[in-house]
């Protein structure tokens, strides 16, 4: 029969496929080696050196890490500022995004308009965002203090008061929550309507529906936004750099800003690289911790999906 032909063709195709797929993915492989893996190895190496931009570099073992942990108050201070920011920003980011998504998920007209309005700030540059908010916060001419004054409240020196500056950065950051909101809205829309229908039939009140249907069904999305919010909170740099320059009195001197300045202002590349690895490890550890805890609170609707939850 045609055995010879059919046997040859697949084998030739398999051999042909041997090199072809690698050619297609080769750009990413090359880019990964040159712009990710290489730099990661390089930066880990640097972190064990005293590495000035110009001049002799010397191997110092784990000294950079030791200095950071035991002798550098700035390290602990900036880390503290970042943790404080993350502790305020992450829950608010998710809560406000969730609130907006719930409002958009109702059956009122014009949701497309409101959705656009909420998403709009997240498409502009961090620099533009900062200039916009700097006038809103301005102590003398700012919109915010004027409105506070109108309602009989004393104005605040938003960017000049160490207590308020972090709050100011949190609010400006929240303005760009469009992406998080969209993810949660997508999650809400994928919950099968029949679940609510059935609950209503059996007389389950709306608040109980929210607790027993919405939250569990949305929990995978909440987990995802929780992790991405933590990552973005730890990397916060542009806003602090331009809005408050780390001040007043170092109250917004974020960890990412300390790393940036150590590298590009103090030119201490080795120490900066070591700190960037500490940030990497913290982010990884937090993400893993959140994912570990997720088995307790994240609900995966394994079977629903295949059966009928797809027509939403």
């Amino acid at each position, binding site marked *: 029969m045609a055995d010879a032909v059919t046997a040859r063709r697949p084998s030739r195709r398999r051999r042909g*496929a041997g090199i*072809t*797929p*690698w*050619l*297609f*993915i080769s*750009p*990413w492989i*090359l*880019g*990964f080696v*040159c712009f990710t893996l290489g*730099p*990661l190895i*390089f*930066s880990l190496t*640097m972190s064990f050196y005293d590495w000035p931009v110009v001049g002799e570099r010397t191997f110092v073992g784990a000294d950079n890490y030791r200095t950071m942990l035991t002798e550098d108050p700035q390290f602990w201070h900036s880390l503290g500022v970042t943790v404080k920011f993350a502790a305020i920003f992450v829950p608010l980011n998710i809560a406000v995004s969730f609130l907006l998504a719930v*409002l*958009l998920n109702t059956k*009122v007209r014009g*949701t497309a308009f*409101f959705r656009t*309005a*909420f998403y*709009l*700030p997240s*498409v*502009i*540059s*961090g*620099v*533009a965002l900062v*200039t*916009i*908010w700097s*006038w*809103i916060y301005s102590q*003398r001419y700012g919109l915010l203090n*004027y409105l506070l004054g109108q309602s009989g409240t004393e104005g605040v020196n938003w960017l000049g008061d160490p207590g308020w500056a972090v709050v100011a950065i949190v609010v400006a950051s929240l*303005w760009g929550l469009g992406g998080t909101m*969209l993810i949660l809205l*997508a999650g809400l829309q*994928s919950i099968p309507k029949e679940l609510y229908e059935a609950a209503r039939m059996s007389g389950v009140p709306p608040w109980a529906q929210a607790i027993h249907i919405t939250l569990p069904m949305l929990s995978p999305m909440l987990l995802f936004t929780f992790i991405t919010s933590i*990552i973005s909170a*730890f990397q916060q*740099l*542009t806003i602090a750099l*331009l809005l408050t320059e780390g001040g007043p009195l170092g109250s917004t001197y974020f960890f*990412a800003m300390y790393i*940036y300045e150590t*590298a590009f202002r103090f030119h201490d*590349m080795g120490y*900066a*690289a070591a700190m*960037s690895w500490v*940030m990497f490890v913290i*982010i990884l550890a937090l*993400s893993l911790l959140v994912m570990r805890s997720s088995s307790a609170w994240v609900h995966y609707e394994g079977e629903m999906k295949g059966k009928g939850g797809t027509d*939403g």
Partner: protein
Amino acid sequence: MARTFTYSALIFLSALFIAPFLWTLITAVKSDAELVAYPPVFWPETWHWENFAIAWTKHPFNIFLQNSVIIVILSTIGQLFSSSLVAYGFARFRFPGRDAIFILLLATMMIPWDVKMIPLYMEFNYLGWINTLKPLIVPAWFGEAFFVFLLRQYIMTIPMEIDEAARMDGANAWQIYWRIHLPLMVPALVLVGTFHFMNAWNDYLGPLIYLNDQSKYTLTLGLALLKGLHNEADINSIAAITIILCGPPLALFFFAQRYIMDNALGSSVKG
């Protein structure tokens, strides 16, 4: 009752999200006297549109714009080409180690930029690329994990029979990618192009680290420069440049909105 509450909440909250834009626009067209007036002027007596032209001449913004445009165009072309190529490789071939490599690709999304910032600076410095636009263009030609993932998901929804039929007609893998999948991918490519355009146009830290001379500055650096030297009288200029800087991403967003929303919210856009 509930409906009234929802509407009031939506209107109030959306006003909070839009008001800062409007306030910036109004600030841009105010006269110098109105800028420092108290209580603040909410509706300028005359709208000084010439403030935009005045702001534009305070620094060599033509050059900044030119640099931004060069970076955005060249890197977007590279991103579309490389990411779609890689996505096609992952979506349509079976090869040893494919799934492990794909997981590795996804894992790179977790790496904070701060860790790569310093070694990349040293690498580009070694290559002599500092103070050129290359660090902001070349890496985009090697694909980006998130975009590869997005495009791969899209290709997976296209029936394999289309590839088979083309192969029967004698098309090779490259021709199937170039003539069949690339045109079919257009909605997903609009999405990738839009996201990449916005990232590149809005980028501040990249240009800040890699560019030194004003002749190489991008618009974001130009705006920061203007802001850095500002005094009260310059605020309308800063506002004007801010509005100009926001223009292209906002315009692109309105154009691509359907694709962005449909992708996020999961309904089909093919049609």
